């Protein structure tokens, strides 16, 4: 997907909440890249992951993070997009669970991805094998490994989008 299209999609995520899922849905041959397609990076996690997510949490007898309200999320409602947002937001804790092969963050990630509970153990086993050989270990790399594995080895056990 070229830069022009991804930029247009990012703008679309801001200006037309309904436009993004429709665009993603209509082009099933193309891989969904939630980092660009949904504008997640710009909307919620500008640069540095969890630190950005808490940047506006100041007064602790009341905090706010209005931009990520579930009630206002109409774009990027697919399992893939939600999984990407989850990975990005929780990576420091999630990657430890992935390394150990189990944990509440791994369970949440796979449930969010729409994978049957009976398949979780096998999926994370496969993801661990792939991550050992992966040079990058950031959130996007984990997301790519997971999607690759779901697409190639567990398509029947997980949601399609």
């Amino acid at each position, binding site marked *: 997907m070229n830069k022009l299209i991804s930029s247009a999609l990012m703008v679309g995520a801001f200006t037309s909440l309904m436009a993004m899922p429709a665009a993603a849905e209509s082009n099933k041959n193309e891989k969904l890249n939630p980092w660009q397609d949904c504008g997640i990076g710009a909307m919620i996690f500008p640069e540095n992951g*969890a*630190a950005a*997510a*808490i*940047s*506006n*949490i*100041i*007064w*602790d*007898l*009341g*905090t*706010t*993070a*209005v931009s*990520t*309200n*579930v*009630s*206002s999320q109409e774009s990027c409602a697919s399992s893939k997009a939600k999984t990407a947002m*989850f990975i990005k*937001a*929780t990576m*420091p*804790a999630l*990657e*430890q669970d*992935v*390394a*150990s*092969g*189990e*944990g*509440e*963050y791994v*369970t*949440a990630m796979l*449930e*969010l991805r729409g994978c049957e*509970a009976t398949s979780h153990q096998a999926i*994370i*086993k496969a993801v*661990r094998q792939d*991550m*050992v050989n992966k040079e990058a*270990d950031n959130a996007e790399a984990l997301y790519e490994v997971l999607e690759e594995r779901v697409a190639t080895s567990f398509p029947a056990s997980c949601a399609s989008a």
Partner: protein
Amino acid sequence: MDLAGSIFYGFYLPSQSVKAKIIPWCLLFLINTCHAFSAMATPSLAQLATDSQWLKLLHYSSGEKHKSYITSQDFFLSDSGHYDALAELKATISAFYLPIRDALSPNEHAQCRFPARLIWIRKNLDLASYGEMKRLDCKQYNDWRQQVSAKSVSVIFASGYMDNPASMYGHLFLKLNSEAPRKSDLLNLSLNYGAIVPHKENPVAYIVRGIFGGYDAGFSDQEFYRHHHNYGDVELRDMWEYRLSISDKDMDFLLAHIWEVLGNKFDYYFIDENCGFHIAKLLELVSDTQIISDSSLWVIPSSVAKGLKNTQYKNAPLVSQTNFIPSKETQLHQAYSKLSSRQKSAAQNIVNNNFDIDSNEYESLASQDKKAVTESLLQYLAVLIKKQPGNNSLKDKKRTLLFERLRLPAGKVKVNSHQNEAPHLGMKPSKFSLGYLNGDNGQNFITTGFRMTYFDDLSFNSTKKRFTNLEMLDIEAIANENTLKILKLDLIDVDSLYIPTLPWDKKPASAWSVRLGFEQLHNNCFDCGIYFAEGDIGKSALFGTTNLAYAMVGAKVFAGEKDDATISAKLGLINLFHEKMSAKIEVQQAARFDLTNSYKTQYSAELNIQLATNSEIRLYMEKQETTLLGLRFNWFWGF
């Protein structure tokens, strides 16, 4: 805006203005006329408008002159709805009967915006006399309800966070728990209440506006994993979950009301109209009794936790279960405590060798031991990265360990979680004191004091961190037959005297303190007041598990009886030698900042004996210009 305009808020279109103004007036006429005929059988609208649950739906303050805490005009369908419950009731009924306009979505209709009001009105009013109400398909609301799919609600208490003054009392938010088929608790929805603070807000404006007003606030709904990660893994704060037992019907009503308040604004006040207050008021919608008093002058989360535990719901405790959710740091200490000496030694060598795992000691370990070592070191690095955010080399070290852990067999090393004491079990936050003070110059005084919040270094508040002091608005006066004087007034007196390093770090613990207020220049004059600001930093060491020694240096500026700026050094020892007895001794030497003048050395000692959860006796001595000996009885209370 006129009345018609307000009723049609969100529906009002200039091109249809005449029609828009006529219809609501007709409906209001019908409402009043129909109601006149049925007045003998059902309560009047005026009576219904005073119903406590209707007032709660509008978030009205208590007292004779009601006024809503919600400031968004969108939340009200009547122009006077933010203070006139009857007008809002009439406007709401009227709006429920309005037809859908072609250009507008049903989601904008009052039935879809106010589903809890609809439930309540249908339950309490015989709508048959008003005609048939066409029910709408509220897609946005239904989608949200389907996504939430909550069957129960929990209140989450995030413990105090000493790194931020605004977080020291802890934080409360709701978790809406779904049932099967969802397995993961992290994916449940949470509801947070908070001030809307501009990005990179000026710290002074932040404090002033936080305390005295100036920020909007509101509820926001996010997945629980965001809070679980932010509080537990990033800010390293333990959490407790109070799971509430609420009927399905009330749960439905509560969720409907949560939908109503989302996106609406409140005024924010750190001291009383904060998260604790509004979370409690939200839950009181379905509770017969108050969780926190409407007249509370200040509200802190632990008071709400106590209120929850004391609240009955349908003749049973409202709280059905309490769960502890350990922070990453707590998990690290728990993991470390479970390591064998061989595992600890191997981990220590890895730390000492800059996280190089190619050592004979590590390689000689069994696979299960390697798992324990790498997992505990990953916990260690995760915490260290949060404490040293600028140290990028830590991430490389973590990567090394992550790859090592990936090569080892799957399956976590199980560590039994120790449960810290829940916040509702601590003593109440406010204090009255009465005592006697004797000076060696022959003067005797009665002493009396008041402290708004919360605890000091010697307090036996089971939920506070050890060796911490968090006092705000602490005033003490002395009196005898001749005089009445303010001895001191601490606006803020906060310290954290034991901030330990992490396992495998051999450095001493850190300590700091900050004080701001009014006190006497020295202890043989009670008419020598000074206004002061003081800060200290230093190091501390724990001996055994109950003895802390600390050494600090500090600076102080003051004005009043004398104007000066001083530097000081202090040494102290705190001993928690019994579960109901603690003591502190301290010696402090201060001098003018340019060392041209020194002040007399100050010695102090204090003994605390806890009598009950909410009462204690203090015996104290202070020697400087003169020697004072005092006895004080403290009684703790809360709203």
